[in-house]
């Protein structure tokens, strides 16, 4: 075999490996989803979605769980969006290159890699106990906000950096102040990217279980929450609870719950992709 043939062979082998790796992931995911659908689809009904949890698997529903998830999601958005975007704007547009900002940047990147259960413990110590919020939606949302803040900050900075400096220069040269330039030019141009990052971070928060269990999301809540200070449960915690039961009926409930949870995250990711494409075609310089 000469060198050209060898190289071509290597090329083929690598291509094969790549295709296998890609398909392995997709196939395993497809098997998993197929299995879940097969198991849980029979339980999916309006009744299942609107029923309170119960000792009897057939009467049990996810009403309190998805209501809790919606409450936590809304509160987490309200807390993490302004904080994360604000921090991103500061670091990217106002922060000068000095040791302090470098220190902040390195630590934010590090925070993104901290295991979520550690955030749960932090939330338990600070929000639940020290600030006496109890096992409330607020405490859970604050904890999840801490968890996704680094992700939002990093994606905000990336979106801001994608705005061409010529636009900033043009605005500043017109006599616009820094804030006017950010508000009128940089934010509108980067908003799609920022929103995409926020939604992806939130869709991660929706699936988080460990920190919420630590903070005290209850496995059995007989009423849907009506205020941020109420006790709560969320879909992943409810699923976790059902999976640990010995009865087969509850496992079916868990599968049905997973279908709903997957549906929510797919929809959120879909919105993120849609927004990104829409903004990209609009901001075409």
């Amino acid at each position, binding site marked *: 075999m000469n060198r050209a043939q060898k190289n071509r062979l290597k090329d083929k082998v690598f291509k094969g490996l790549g295709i296998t790796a890609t398909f392995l992931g997709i196939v395993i995911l497809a098997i998993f989803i197929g299995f879940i659908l097969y198991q849980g689809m029979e339980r999916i009904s309006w009744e299942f979605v609107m029923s309170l949890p119960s000792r009897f698997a057939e009467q049990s529903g996810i009403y309190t769980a998805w209501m809790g998830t919606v409450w936590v999601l809304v509160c987490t958005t309200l807390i993490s969006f302004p904080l994360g975007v604000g921090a991103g704007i500061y670091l990217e547009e106002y922060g000068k290159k000095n040791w302090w900002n470098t220190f902040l940047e390195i630590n934010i990147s590090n925070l993104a890699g901290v295991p979520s259960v550690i955030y749960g413990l932090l939330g338990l110590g600070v929000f639940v106990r020290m600030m006496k919020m109890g096992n409330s939606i607020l405490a859970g949302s604050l904890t999840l906000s801490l968890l996704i803040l680094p992700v939002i900050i990093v994606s905000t900075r990336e979106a801001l950096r994608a705005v061409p400096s010529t636009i900033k220069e043009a605005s500043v*040269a*017109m*006599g616009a102040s820094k804030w006017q330039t950010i508000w*009128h030019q940089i934010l509108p141009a980067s908003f799609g990217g920022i929103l995409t990052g926020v939604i992806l971070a939130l869709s991660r928060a929706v699936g988080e279980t460990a920190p919420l269990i630590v903070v005290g999301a209850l496995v059995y809540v007989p009423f849907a929450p009506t205020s941020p200070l109420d006790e709560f449960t969320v879909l992943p915690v409810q699923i976790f609870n059902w999976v640990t039961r010995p009865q087969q009926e509850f496992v079916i409930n868990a599968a049905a719950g997973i279908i709903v949870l997957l549906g929510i995250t797919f929809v959120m990711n879909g919105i993120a992709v849609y927004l990104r494409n829409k903004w990209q075609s*609009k901001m075409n310089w």
Partner: protein
Amino acid sequence: MESDSQSSNPKTTQVETKPKLNSKHQSYKLQAQNVDVFYEDFQAINNISLGIVENSITAFIGPSGCGKSTFLRLFNRMNDYIDGFSMNGNILMDGKDIYDESVNVEELRKIVGMVFQKPNPFPKSIYENVAYGLRIQGIKDEEYIENRVIESLKQSTLYSEVEDNLDKMALSLSGGQQQRLCIARALAVKPTVLLMDEPTSALDPISSGKIEDLIHELKEDYTIVIVTHNMQQAGRVSDNTAFLYMGNLVEYGDTQKIFTNPEKDRTQNYITGRFG
């Protein structure tokens, strides 16, 4: 380097920087006094002094990296945000130091407009691009804004081409149209000085020609400073020309004289294309 005579060595050159003032104007509109500029340790401008007469067109020429853009950006303080920038000396406008602490940079930039090398319209409509400067000043009077937009577009000779679709995205215009839009945008806030940083270098010859004609017309009302790489352009449009080389002002004076009978060999060599 070897071909240069002793007299044009940039380190030792002292340049006579006094183009004749017309009797109408008793002082310079813009004046640089012993200006040094540093980026960290690198000296980009070396002790330059020159005066720019009101309602004239002054061209800065010189090879890439000679400091002409840096020098231009001193007049609207666009270098302020560059990391490591520092300067000595004074830049005066109407006799007042624009780097004085009492000067509001935003106010300064409203009277010193700028046009950039690459057309850089905002990703907004044509109308909103021109209205931008007025809106950020807090002007709410829509009728006034509309008048200014139309007037500025007429002044920059773009109006006839876009009058039917002012709501169209500015980015859909051609390069030359975009640049004239950027000029209109700068004019809308009624500046007195217009700085142009190689405004035609990204454009085709026909668009460049239009912009040059426009610059000629604008001279009536504005003091224009233009940086250009294009010798013919400097010769065609400007009244005075400054030749910069490696951060030094080699020669400054009447354009006709610089192009026909320069005092320095280095200027002669650059203009005739022997280097640069």
